[in-house]
């Protein structure tokens, strides 16, 4: 399964689960109705004059159903709002403290380095790392999409040897890449709703028992009965919910373990970490931990539940599966294979990559890539890497791609920055020579990805101010290039802009939008002839019947049209997305090979479609 199929599988599972959850809710509502009717029937025995009124009371049914649904939805909504803020919010609600290079201890810095290497190797923005003060060994990844993901680790995990820490973090990264997280968040919200009914029953029961103790008459039996029954029904709903959650979670966890081994080619790393957990326990003390249990690496619950309900598969089983996995061997050539592509095939002599190979690199990870990721991180100018780690300087990093090369325009831009913040302008002047000295593409994109969490850490006011500055810079010469447009959109997402979810669609329904995207790329290629060739080359890769349409002209591909087109294309299914990315690669490559300069553009566009393409690296 490659990156695209993973996303599809996650979405299908998501749909299946919503259906099952709805059934569970219906079951709960029906049960609550039954309880109230029984209670009322029983209650009538106490009021002799009401005897004889049996049968369905529709007002009662209506009222109870409404009440129950309200309660469940209310509980789900409360949970949903808590999770809405993204990975960072979840980590904060669990009490996690973000760690930074400048102030972290040796173990913390090591974890940060591991996360940075993975970010470069996978092309996904670097997630912030939060530490939970707990001696158990555990980790989680939270967030709806890579742009707002966060990774949490316990203090106990940080103390493990480097390869074990790397194995666990690779596991969490694979959750991010496989698209598990959106599904997980939804699960948490729905289960919270089902749990509320049990909670209500508990409240009523407690209240009835307590009031019964106090009053002279003795506890009101019907109330106790209602409370106990509600609690029982609630627990049924709870079990139902947890069972589904666990069953779903289990298969994803095995998948994540397998992916992590693929990333690191080191089964021992994860296996050892799991062995330690089996020995030492992994409970995390936090009220929220129960809710987010299956975001955690191992079972974070203190109580040992029976294996059917444990949210993660039993440890011995996981360890056995990991040890039984075949270590991935490099596979050459065949299209669609993504396991461990050899380093040599990734970079030709000129540093370019064959256009047809690009799709295989998307979201793919292998031990070679991981090593190369670490090597690339080492080669990046330390000044720039350092700057990407802190919000105040990360702003400068985020502005660098928007700066013009030509001196007059550049001076105008720096003047604009100076008007807002002289210190930032000075910082730009300091960093710019280093930035331009980097080989065109190899290091720029990784640096932007590394700066992503620092930018997200800006306060809301600062973010808004920074966005205005970016817009001003992009508009200096009155023309907005495709590169600038995509860079701005990516920046907006990092700085917190929420994109609405898009309906799923097929490529043949979005042929027009695909044409706009390919047209925009073709326009960058050069003059009329070259543009026509580029467009044709890209369109040929799409599995659409009928000949290529006319190449859209400049107005058709303007930002006003391109933006919505990209948004709609985010809903493509696996086959369609793969084909589109392939087509873009061919449109960008002038001669069938994607050169580093062209690769940056490709990466920006693919990023807008939600497809991570990592930096190309030669050995």
């Amino acid at each position, binding site marked *: 399964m490659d990156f695209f199929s993973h996303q599809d599988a996650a979405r299908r599972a998501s749909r299946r689960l919503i259906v099952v959850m709805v059934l569970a809710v219906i079951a709960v509502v029906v049960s609550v109705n039954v309880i109230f009717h029984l209670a*009322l029937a029983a209650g009538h025995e106490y009021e002799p004059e009401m005897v004889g*009124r049996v049968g369905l*009371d529709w*007002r*009662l049914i209506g*009222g*109870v159903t409404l*009440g129950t649904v*309200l*309660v469940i939805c*209310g*509980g789900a*909504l*409360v949970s949903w*709002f*808590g999770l809405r*803020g993204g990975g960072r*919010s979840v980590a*904060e*609600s669990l*009490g*996690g*403290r*973000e760690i*930074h290079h*400048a*102030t972290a201890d040796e173990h913390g810095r090591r974890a940060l380095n591991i996360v940075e290497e993975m970010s470069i190797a996978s092309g996904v923005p670097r997630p912030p790392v939060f530490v939970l003060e707990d001696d158990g060994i555990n980790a989680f990844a939270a967030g709806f999409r890579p742009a707002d993901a966060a990774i949490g680790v316990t203090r106990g995990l940080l103390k493990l040897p480097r390869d074990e820490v790397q194995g666990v973090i690779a596991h969490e990264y694979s959750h991010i890449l496989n698209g598990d997280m959106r599904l997980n968040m939804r699960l948490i919200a729905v289960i919270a709703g089902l749990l*509320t009914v049990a909670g*209500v029953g508990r*409240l*009523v029961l407690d209240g009835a028992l307590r009031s019964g103790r106090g009053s002279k008459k003795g506890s009101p039996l019907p109330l106790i009965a209602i409370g106990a029954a509600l609690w029982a029904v609630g627990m049924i709903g709870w079990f139902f919910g947890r069972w589904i959650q666990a069953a779903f979670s289990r298969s994803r966890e095995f998948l994540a373990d397998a992916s992590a081994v693929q990333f690191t080619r080191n089964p021992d790393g994860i296996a050892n970490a799991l062995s330690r957990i089996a020995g030492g326990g992994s409970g995390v003390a936090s009220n*929220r931990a129960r809710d987010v249990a299956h975001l955690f690496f191992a079972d974070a619950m203190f109580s040992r539940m029976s294996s059917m309900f444990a949210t993660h598969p039993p440890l011995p089983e996981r360890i056995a599966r990991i040890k039984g996995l075949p270590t991935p061997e490099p596979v050459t050539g065949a299209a669609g294979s993504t396991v461990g592509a050899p380093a040599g095939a990734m970079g030709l002599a000129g540093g370019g990559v064959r256009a047809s190979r690009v799709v295989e690199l998307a979201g793919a990870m292998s031990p070679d890539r991981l090593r190369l990721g670490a090597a690339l991180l080492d080669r990046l100018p330390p000044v720039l890497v350092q700057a990407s780690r*802190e*919000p*105040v*300087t990360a702003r400068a990093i985020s502005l660098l791609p928007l700066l013009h090369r030509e001196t007059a325009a550049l001076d105008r831009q720096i003047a604009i920055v100076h008007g807002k913040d002289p*210190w930032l302008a000075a910082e730009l002047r300091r960093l710019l020579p280093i930035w331009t000295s980097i080989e065109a593409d190899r290091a720029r994109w990784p640096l932007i990805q590394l700066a992503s969490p620092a930018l997200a*850490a*800006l*306060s*809301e*006011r*600062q973010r808004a101010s920074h966005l205005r500055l970016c817009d001003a810079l992009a508009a200096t010469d009155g023309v907005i290039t495709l590169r600038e447009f995509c860079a701005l959109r990516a920046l907006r997402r990092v700085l917190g802009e929420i994109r609405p979810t898009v309906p799923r669609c097929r490529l043949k329904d979005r042929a027009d939008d695909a044409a706009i995207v390919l047209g925009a790329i073709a326009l960058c290629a050069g003059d009329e002839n070259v543009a026509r060739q580029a467009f044709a080359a890209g369109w040929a890769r799409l599995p659409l019947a009928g000949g290529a349409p006319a190449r859209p002209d400049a107005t058709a591909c303007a930002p006003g049209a391109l933006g919505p087109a990209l948004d709609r294309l985010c809903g493509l299914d696996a086959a369609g997305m793969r084909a589109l990315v392939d087509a873009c690669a061919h449109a960008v490559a002038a001669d069938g090979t994607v050169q580093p300069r062209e690769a940056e553009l490709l990466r920006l566009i693919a990023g807008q479609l939600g497809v991570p393409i990592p930096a190309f690296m030669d050995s």
Partner: protein
Amino acid sequence: MGPTTIVLIVIGVVVLLLLMWAVGVYNNLVTLRNRFKNAFAQIDVQLKRRFDLIPNLVETAKAYMAHERGTLEAVIQARNQAVSAQGKAAADPGDAGAIRGLMAADAALTGGLGKLFALMENYPQLKADANMRQLSEELTSTENKVAFARQAYNDVVMVYNTARELFPAVVIANVAGFGAAQLYEIEVAAEREAPKVKF
């Protein structure tokens, strides 16, 4: 089906919805509180950088300003006190007292540095020293970074304080023990100026 039963059910549901709203508010306050604690970490990073520059600065100055021992010692003292205040604040950014302590120690350090730089005007050789120029440059840059981190922290603190002061959330906040967070401000107007280093 008596009216009392209907009323009871309705009341029950309303109470429930209220409870759920309360839980939501509580969770939100927890998240916002952790957010400002994390925002403090950025101030921590920049202050550490600032405090780390001081010993080197003082050593370089000592070579030229041997007679000004008093001022130099005062700066080192202030710096050490600021470092210890920083440790307390970093351990629990939710402790308003610790934050105020750090603010005071930082202000004292700024005052000491101001005196030191004023004195440096009398030592042109020191001013020309390459090492001193670089250190002063870094110090000014760090001051700006501290200011920026402070701004971010205060923004987040404002959000938290507003959330906990709004009615009716304030009821839950007080019951659950969410105290007001301390804004990080430079208190003394005279010391608001970062030490101006002009060469």
